[in-house]
């Protein structure tokens, strides 16, 4: 599903689309926009998208990336789908806490825990 210039890895597991980032730093606006567009296509392909985004490989995340996540969350909710986030490093999780986005997103410690939320 991911092309050679893709910034994400995508796989389907039990009806859930699992997304991982290729880059360790999610900072570059052009890359963030490309990630948003790739995920937009995933959302558009499903009548009720179930998406799990893993941050397992991510060291740095900017507010621009948070903005894209918010937009993704809104689009999925508008299609009666579900978005979960998982594997967030404690330093990055603090960014979610500072911005209070930990209260907006459904965040789980691990992919396995998040998968149970889709059941």
């Amino acid at each position, binding site marked *: 599903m991911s092309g050679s210039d893709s910034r994400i890895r995508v796989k389907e597991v039990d009806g859930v689309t699992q997304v991982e980032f290729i880059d360790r730093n999610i900072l570059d606006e052009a890359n963030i926009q490309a990630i948003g567009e790739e995920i937009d296509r995933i959302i558009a392909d499903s009548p009720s998208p179930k998406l799990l985004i893993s941050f397992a490989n991510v060291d740095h995340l*900017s*507010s621009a990336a948070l903005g894209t996540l918010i937009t993704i969350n809104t689009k999925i909710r508008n299609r009666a789908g579900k978005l979960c986030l998982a594997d967030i490093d404690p330093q990055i999780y603090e960014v979610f806490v500072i911005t*209070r986005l930990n209260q907006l997103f459904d965040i789980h410690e691990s992919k396995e825990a998040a998968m149970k939320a889709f059941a």
Partner: protein
Amino acid sequence: MPGSPMSGQVSLVNDRDQINAVQDLVVEQAEELGFPNGARFALRLAIEEAIVNAFRHGHRGLPDDTPITVEYTISPERINVAIEDRGPGFVPAAVPDPTLDENLENPGGRGLVLMRAYMSRVRHNDRGNRVEMELLMPDEL
């Protein structure tokens, strides 16, 4: 010389390689002077947000190759970074608080919150086209 203050000034345009290079320069010098991982994470994030704000908001309507200036001074006690753009400036107090319930789903406007949360001190000049940030060495490493 280890322990001596280091300082410099860099001019850069809105190019990801140049932005990364100035972040690496400051963060690596902070590491040399013993700033711990958490402080370096904070520093990189705050510089990223300030630079992106300068180009995206400060330089809106200006030619793409309009440069900003990054000044830094790093000592074993503190890091000072100033980022100045060539735009007309803005009023920080007029930026809506993105942590309020009614703004939580707005995609933008979190850069300033992160800079203020992670730096020991953040101030803007009167014109609003220059931000000065200070990060003190944490008491406990």
